[in-house]
């Protein structure tokens, strides 16, 4: 008698669990896989990118970095176009994360040149002085490719022998950078979101030496990592004796130049501070 009561209880409890489970966990499988949400330009990972993704998982990067841009001003202005369901169909597992100790990485691809990522992964503080990210210099050892083909087959991703050969001689860091550079680039959002500067651009601080100290501060915090503390270059070209019109420099800093890997700083600096750093670059030689 008492046994039966317990069995009835167990069955009842299981049924009660299953109601919410079926409605909110099982049923969505149908709507999330809706073909209407497919995005034709979204491509699976290449062998090198997949190896990079596995290193991202191994190192637990998702404990500090999210990979979803929410449709909120604070997210889209900072990270780019909001994330779409169709962009994640090849993500097994998903890597959306739950805490942004570091910035979101859903659209990091194409934001910085490879050389920036390499320096940053090896020594984050050399590129972002007060960052608290650990150093990942140990990733420079050779990539283990013994499972690469099996991984591609397991996930059903297309690949060629040339793709596999491209992993040979690469380091784990190369794979990681290849993965990061792919993130969020399957849809051409960066072109669409590119800042269009209209009208005549006139430097409000032209020949105004009083803004030089602030301009230098902005330079040290944002530009020196790539162009050198002494402006002699590094990841980016030398800016010593830069001889371009103020408006051109402003456009490059504010909107970036994708072809060369120069990131856009308009969102971070705004117009006024961008003009101050332009003024610093132009006037420092004479003062």
């Amino acid at each position, binding site marked *: 008698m*008492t046994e039966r*009561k*317990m069995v009835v209880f*167990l069955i009842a*409890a299981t049924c*009660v*669990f*299953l*109601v*919410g*489970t079926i*409605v*909110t966990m099982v049923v*969505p499988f149908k*709507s*999330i*896989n809706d073909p209407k949400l497919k995005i034709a330009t979204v491509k699976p990972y290449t062998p090198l990118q997949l190896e990079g993704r*596995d290193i991202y*998982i*191994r*190192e*637990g990067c998702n*404990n*500090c970095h999210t990979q*979803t841009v*929410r*449709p909120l*001003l*604070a997210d889209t202005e*900072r990270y780019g176009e909001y*994330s779409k*369901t169709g962009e*994640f169909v*090849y*993500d*097994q*597992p*998903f*890597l*959306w994360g*739950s*805490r942004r*100790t*570091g*910035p979101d990485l859903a659209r990091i691809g194409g934001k910085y040149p490879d050389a920036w990522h390499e320096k940053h992964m090896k020594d*984050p*503080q050399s590129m972002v002085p*007060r*960052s*608290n990210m*650990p*150093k990942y*210099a*140990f990733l420079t050892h050779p990539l283990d490719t013994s*499972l690469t083909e*099996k*991984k591609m087959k397991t*996930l059903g991703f297309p690949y060629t022998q040339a793709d596999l050969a491209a992993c040979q001689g690469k380091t784990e860091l190369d794979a990681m950078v290849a993965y990061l550079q792919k993130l969020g680039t399957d849809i051409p959002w960066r072109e669409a979101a590119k800042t269009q500067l209209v009208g005549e651009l006139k430097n409000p601080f032209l020949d105004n030496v009083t803004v030089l100290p602030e301009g230098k501060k902005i330079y040290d915090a944002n530009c020196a990592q790539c162009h050198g503390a002494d402006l002699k270059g590094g990841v980016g070209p030398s800016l010593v004796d830069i001889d371009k019109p103020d408006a051109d420099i402003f456009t490059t800093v504010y909107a970036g130049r994708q072809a060369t890997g120069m990131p856009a700083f*308009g969102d971070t600096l*705004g117009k006024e501070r961008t003009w101050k750093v332009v003024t610093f670059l132009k006037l420092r030689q004479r003062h």
Partner: protein
Amino acid sequence: MDQQQGYADDVVKGFILWSMVWGLVTVLIGVLISLQLVYPQLNLPPFLTYGRLRPVHTNAGIFGWGIGSFMAFFFYITQRLTKTRLWSPGLARVQLWLFNVIIALAAVTLLAGMNRSKEYAELEWPVALLVVVLWVIFSVNIIMTIAKRKEEQMYISLWYILATLVGVAVLYLVNNVSIPVSLFKSYSAYAGANDANVQWWYGHNAVAMVLTTPPLALFYYYLPKSTGVPIYSHRMGVIAFWSLIFMYLWTGAHHLLWTPVPDWVQTLAMGFSVMLIAPSWASVFNGYFSMEGQWNQMRDNYLVKFLIFAITFYGLQTLQGPSQAVRTFSAFIHYTDWVPGHVHMGTLGWVSLVIFAGIYYTIPKLYGREIYSVGLANLHFWLAVTGQIIFSITMWVAGVQQASMLHASNPDGSLHYSFMETLIELYPYWTWRSIAGIIYLASLLVFLYNIVKTISAGKAQPAEQKA
């Protein structure tokens, strides 16, 4: 004395002592990783980086300290509420070994980078399979003991225990489905938004089935045992039970508000999260009303102090949780330190305080000794509560400050602060969080000392207190 009644209690002792070891480990790692956020040079790659240590912290906490002690208490409580000896003490002994092997394997594999990345389901498939075996062994033992019970009525604690056994099994099996590539590597069977939705159905209900129903089973057992008066309303407990286990399963997607998971799933999660206030507070009121005429025991009886503070933190937790599950508020504080502040009120406040009370009550019974020092137990209590409150409050303030800065915009619509400008403001708060963690660690050391001394040097219990 209990042993003379024929209960199998050696394994209860084993689980309690081992869970205390893992509890110490998780707090030690917690303090270390909190310091790593302030001093990145404390990361020692490749094995001891924040990214690899954080899953060890959460797994040791939830599974080592939480599940480990719940296994002890489920064995202890079930035998007494059924007036029946454990179905198979031998199997329970095997379970204790397996449990410790799994937690140790979990720590080693996670530090080695074998990690499936899904939160609280990180363990690679061979270890996850061992967890399934462990859970089956455990469930069979408890269910068989209840099946041949000598007490027909099932007290409310047994309901929560049975629900835990079923719930954890369903959640763990579904979310851990993986496609192995090798012994050390597998991929989730689900992709993208589906994977996210399954994961947070699991993740949030791990909170329900590991951090809510087991401590409630303990609370409903140990509060009447400690106060000496029965629980206020068994019927209210029953209503709260069924509505709690019904509503919880709908709420996982509140972890995914504003993500590509379908809006209707998010909205249901939001609605049910708010509704969950009712069954949660039914247990809180059941606790408070049971204290009628007994409030003096808050002064005289340290066990009651632990339990009533615990249920109070549970009440606060279940008000704050639903508020975070609302879209507008989530947009503001999600992904910030607010959330770790919330989580640690639940784990350090609610769950751990209940476990502490359970251990303080049970260990003297099992060893036939009086607690070594009530003074130290009080010191433990105040250190733990102080550490927890400093932790949570600093994290909430930090979360609100960072959220405000992240959302601040200029008149032209551009954002006012870069990400780094918001991050550097967090360093002072993180330092305080580490201090709070060290205070909690100190409380734990006092606790461990008190328990060890009780076992080794406690006074024998006077005869009338036995049984």
